[in-house]
């Protein structure tokens, strides 16, 4: 559906969630298939894309979204601290995936672990953080969305160059 309008901050972040979920599902399908050795290259490519997408996603949340929420909702500090902790766990898993390098059963297990960890994190954001953000009186989610998008594009361009 090409004619989507611009997204607010929650929608932009959720678009990342859904898109990376698709990548995880693709990866799991290939990893479970009987001829898994034939899909090494594709799995490696998917794993690297997942890692890159999640790294950028975590960074824009940490730089822009979480601070904005922290300001709007002083009582959300526990939620946000937990979210940061989960980011830290995810980053470690991402490092592990990257250090495996080429897809193999060890990477399959790590990617599955990352998938489960991200699912958990996404669910908390969607169930707890987004409703808060959407009801905050002084939070301009559209403007925040714009900032997130700009920074995301910047980081992706950097990643593309270094790749």
């Amino acid at each position: 559906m090409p004619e989507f309008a611009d997204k607010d901050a929650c929608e932009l972040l959720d678009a990342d969630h859904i898109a990376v979920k698709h990548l995880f599902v693709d990866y799991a399908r290939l990893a479970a298939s009987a001829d898994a050795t034939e899909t090494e290259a594709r799995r490696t490519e998917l794993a690297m894309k997942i890692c890159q997408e999640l790294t950028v996603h975590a960074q824009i949340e940490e730089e822009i979204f979480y601070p904005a929420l922290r300001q709007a909702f002083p009582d959300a500090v526990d939620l946000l601290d937990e979210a940061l902790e989960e980011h830290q766990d995810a980053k470690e898993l991402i490092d592990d995936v990257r250090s495996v390098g080429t897809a193999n059963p060890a990477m399959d297990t790590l990617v599955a672990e990352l998938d489960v960890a991200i699912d958990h994190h996404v669910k908390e954001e969607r169930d707890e953080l987004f409703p808060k953000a959407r009801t905050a009186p002084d939070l301009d989610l559209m403007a925040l969305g714009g900032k997130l998008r700009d920074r995301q594009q910047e980081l992706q361009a950097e990643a593309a160059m270094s790749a």
Partner: protein
Amino acid sequence: MPKPIKPASNLQSNKNGVAKAAARNTDSAPSQPVPATSSDAAVAKAAQTGILVASMPFNPTKAGEHGFVNGLAPQAGATVALASRLPTGSTLSEENSSEKLGAVAAEGVNAGIEPLDRVRVDSAGQALTTNQGVKVADNQNSLKYGVRGPALLEDFILREKITHFDHERIPERIVHARGSAAHGFFECYDAATDLTKAAPFKEAGKITPVFVRFSTVAGERGSKDTARDARGFAVKFYTDEGNWDLVGNNMPVFFIQDAMKFPDLVHAVKPEPHNQMPQAASAHDTFWDFVSLMPESTHMLMWVMSDRAIPRSYATMQGFGVHTFRMVNGAGTSVFVKFHWTPMAGTHSLVWDEAVKISGADPDYHRRDLWERIESGAYPEYELGVQVFTEEQAEQFSFDVLDATKIVPEELVPIRPLGRMVLNRNPDNFFAETEQVAFCTAHIVPGLDFSNDPLLAGRHHSYVDTQISRLGGPNFHEIPINAPVAQVHNNQRDGMHRQAIPRGRVSYEPNSLAGGCPFQAGVAQGFVSVAASISAKEEQGKVRAKPEKFADHYTQATLFFESQSPVEQGHIANAFRFELSKVTVPAIRQRTVAMLRNASEALATKVAKGLGMTTMPEPLPKAITDVAAPEVMKSPALSLLHRPGDGSLAGRKVAILVAPGVEADFVLKAQTALLAQGVVARIVGPHIGLMTTLSGDELDADASMENSPGFLFDALILADGAEAIAALSQDGHTGEFIRDQFRHCKPIMCVGDARHLVRKAGLPISMDKSLAQGGTGLIVAEAGEGGDAMDAFMAAMRKHRHFGREMDPPLL
């Protein structure tokens, strides 16, 4: 009666008279044998009977009945050649025939095993009759004294009709009451005589007829097909050496380890006895109370909470023999086997929200699917394979192969394919075939044998026992669907509804009066049990206890959970959440979560969170703490993603949504393209019937959104056409149709402006990145380019579901 030969003398004549007179009595007889040369039939029968009996002066096999060695190789029973058929007949008068009697029984034949044609009924061109064959003149009115007068007791036509009607129902099966069945055949790939001498595996290409019944376990006869439950997968092989029933399930393990607990399990899962609720559901107190006190059920609970418990079709589920069986070859060498049925079309499941909705709109979903696949030639097909291992190997395993709560991982023992089964004919009559079919685990043939699995032993008893009451007596083996194609000859007699008319007066063995027949077949042809010893435990006597390894309740539950993809793990957690949320007693939830902690901490935590538990209960104490290390830590073969099948789409259903003004060229093109792949594409409109298309032609919708909601279809096509889109857009059904397709992660294709229908249904803006990325199963074709997108659409269908869209709670 032929005239006697002229006597040689008066004395001889008198002697003949004596013999004839004596032979005309049914008791007492002369002391000396009568002459065998007599032309008098009665005399000849007496004489030949005498010779026949005399030719067996003693029972020559008696000595061989003793001792272990003889027990392993029983001799065939002694027989005597018959000089004629006279001595073995019931009556001399069998020579008289009639239209009813037929003639004399064919020699050595049980005519009751003839093909089902012998009992098929077709009433074309026939008048209505009573059960006595009397033509009924008036089937509209009872017999009364005067048109307004009292009904008369003499009305045998009314009374016969009502009486039969009153007795149409038989007791339903206590478990597996809800089922559907089909005929087909098993074809052997290559001779497997190295493994077994069982008839179906004797030579490459050998065909054995089968009848297969699929079922749910808990629900009653009329209950929904899509309940969360194990499915029965029972195959009756009509082999040329007798019937073999492989009475399996679509899951390789079970809740319990010993038949002693079977009634308890079934009582716990069935509707609760005080209020008879809930129907066909395990999501209630008594079930979870029981299983959380029976930690050996943990592994099976993983399967039942997984999508395996809500199959897409009977044609897309695996089957398993569950227990360990034996195969025995011609040399008498026996090995252990586990049976596996693998569907060629892949192992595919529904999702829970979909299963719940289907149960409302089409409780017969699986029955209909099986029927329609066969009617349309998309015959369900499965490969039969076995895992083969020796007793010595089994002793080394970390688990006990007699424990029905354990699998043998495919990574430990691979599957050897033996043949394929094709289901290619629907029954003519549900009751006569599907309802009256009677399976039993004890129905095996030479070349097969049992293990000592104590659950299996109990099943051997239970099936026949329940059938005696369900089918009204001990003669249900004579019901046409249950009769073997192999000859049936024994001395079992009488009982309710006996069909066979045995000729002769002998109903015992040994006998000489029937020449020794039917005789015991002996080791060469007959079934001989494997002389399995009870694995060096001779010091043990009668005991009610389990082997030690049965106490490992969690290792394989963990294996199953860890072998699932994250999406499947999520579904398992959600299923536990759903089921336990329906429980009314928090302590039962706590106990179940405490049990799950022993299998997977991650699962237990997720379930607990879903149930709003603020603190985690302590893990249940384990029956043993020191368990053997498992050979396999992860088994990809346990994930549905491992089993996509051959990619065939045959038997799948697609909805093409239309309304007046639809761009019909594409609709017809799409329908044809799908049909070429065996996919049935229904034209679904706001109502059924003719609709004027964009080009002014007419299109006849054969289903409506009202009578066929979206969740009944595997995929959705939204055709172009401004007026049609406007009409669909204002119909509330359209949004539901699209939302369910989206939520259940099914392929959706929209052509041209039909994309607005998807937007209107609430497609979240946050899907944009995924759509750009691709692989969502949402296919957007530009106006006029729908036909070109059909390949992409069918490729998306081959992936079955697109779980990238799945969020919990759902996006849409």
